[in-house]
């Protein structure tokens, strides 16, 4: 099917300066997927969903050389990327709010910077930016 000029790109390349943050997002997502597995306990029926999430994020990590480069095929990894970046965005928004409450200017600035980087990249990739 032909793509229109407004279609999101199929391949997105994360800029070099975003790679450390992207790598952290992906590793945090593995951690969070592992927590999901832990919560399955001895209920065999509960495992497929938790493992599917881990598989998605593992595939994205493999595709980026575990965060070494930022070439991402969105036709394959959109869901995992959306998951990882949304989770970190929510965390940074929380950090920003608590830094404001604690009057921590350094913390607020750092969170703002990360939020800006994440939102810009998500927009470029045509991902959904969750509401604040």
């Amino acid at each position, binding site marked *: 099917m032909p793509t229109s000029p407004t279609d999101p790109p199929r391949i997105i390349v994360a800029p070099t300066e975003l790679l450390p943050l992207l*790598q*952290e997002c992906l*590793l*945090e997502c*593995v*951690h969070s997927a*592992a*927590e999901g*597995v*832990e919560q*399955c*306990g*001895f209920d*065999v029926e509960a*495992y497929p969903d938790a*493992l599917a999430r*881990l598989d998605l994020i*593992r595939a994205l*990590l493999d595709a980026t050389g*575990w*965060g*070494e480069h930022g070439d991402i095929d969105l036709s394959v990894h959109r869901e995992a990327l959306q998951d990882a970046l949304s989770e970190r965005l929510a965390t940074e928004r929380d950090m920003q709010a608590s830094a404001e409450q604690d009057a921590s200017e350094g913390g607020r600035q750092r969170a703002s910077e990360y939020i800006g980087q994440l939102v810009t990249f998500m927009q470029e990739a045509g991902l959904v930016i969750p509401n604040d």
Partner: protein
Amino acid sequence: MTDLGELLETLVQSLLYALMTVAVEFDVLDMEPGPYRVQVEKFEAIRAVLDAIEWGARGEIDVEAHRDVLQQVLADRLIAEHSLMQEQSDTAKDQREHSYACALTIESFMHENGLEIPQAGA
């Protein structure tokens, strides 16, 4: 293929426990690709055994293909059962008997398949 017989249920529980343990260990890892990669590989090795026995629906296994994971999870489980067998209180009688039976099943399987049986108290 080796018939798992009475070991099947114990093996599934032991593998699930091992999966949970590996999952918990993520909490103490440095946020670096190397340690995470090793941990994910541990996770996948355990999962491969669960897949091979269809998460408890299939009562046989290729021991050679999964020897390392079987050695680890069965040895760990055996040590745990040995420990439970030492519980001396009267109320733990059923637990002692259950652990004894479980340990016997595990030891038989390990012996028959050339796995190393840990010493009691290890």
